[in-house]
């Protein structure tokens, strides 16, 4: 499956799950800021991706959870550089480069872009062979 094919299917899934027009969805769109996703939508998106692409997504594999509770990762409302390194390693599908410049925990949702989901799906399909 090519990246374009994955993108088009991800777009279809997001349009359906978040009740938005496909035209509104761009690779750089953020799920919360641009597409209006709420916390529960993340679980729904995981379910729909599993169904649409035929793989299983483990708990916290796609979206990070519990980061805010880890004192190693968070200091004064910001994610520490060690925290970002750990997250980058654990969740390679996210692009943290912009977030690194202003790593406020309250802005973490900005890494949840359409592209990050496409990256995730692409890696899952590649791993499956």
């Amino acid at each position: 499956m090519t990246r374009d094919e994955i993108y088009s299917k991800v777009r279809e899934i997001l349009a359906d799950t978040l009740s938005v027009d496909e035209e509104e969805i761009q690779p750089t769109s953020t799920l919360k800021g641009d597409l209006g996703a709420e916390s529960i939508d993340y679980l729904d998106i995981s379910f729909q991706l599993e169904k649409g692409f035929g793989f299983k997504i483990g708990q916290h594999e796609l979206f990070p959870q519990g980061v805010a509770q880890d004192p190693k990762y968070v200091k004064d409302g910001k994610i520490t550089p060690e925290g970002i390194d750990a997250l980058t390693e654990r969740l390679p599908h996210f692009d943290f480069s912009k977030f690194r410049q202003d790593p406020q925990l309250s802005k973490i949702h900005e890494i949840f872009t359409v592209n990050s989901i496409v990256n995730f799906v692409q890696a899952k399909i590649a791993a499956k062979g």
Partner: protein
Amino acid sequence: MRWMWIDRVTEFEPRTRIVTIKCVSLAEEHLHDHFAADDPALGDRPATPLMPGSLMIEGMAQSAGVLVGHAEQFRQKVVLAKINRAEIFADVTPGMTLRYTAVVDRLDAMGASTLGTVEAFNHATGETSPAKVAEIDLMFSFIDQNMSGMDFPAHNFVFSESFKTLLRMSGIEADF
């Protein structure tokens, strides 16, 4: 029992499928506030109250919620997170029996999604086979797994004594 929108569980396959029934009665007060739009075809006949669609969704949520809750032995607080789809095809009136069928679509450590069908037996017409009146697909969240940073009471406030009674009445073991 207040706020129970199903009367009985009639079929149950753990982690897979549940079938419940609900008898719609004129004695239910909320019905008296819900009527179909005026229908000239009825002539002088008074309008019949309707079962609100929202309560059909609640009935499905309770049915599917029991199915999902049972899968984790009622240890999880299973809350209705999203109505993925609800299509209501026909009016439901007193004298009918609703049959809710919910099947598990997805179930994991964070939550579940279910696909559901609602059928109605219309005792007034004598028709023995039920008519499909709605399709309701839902998503449930195990809130303790999804609300990082938020605390909820330790006791399971979702599955109340009423649910326990309903399940036991229907012959399903409910030790929670």
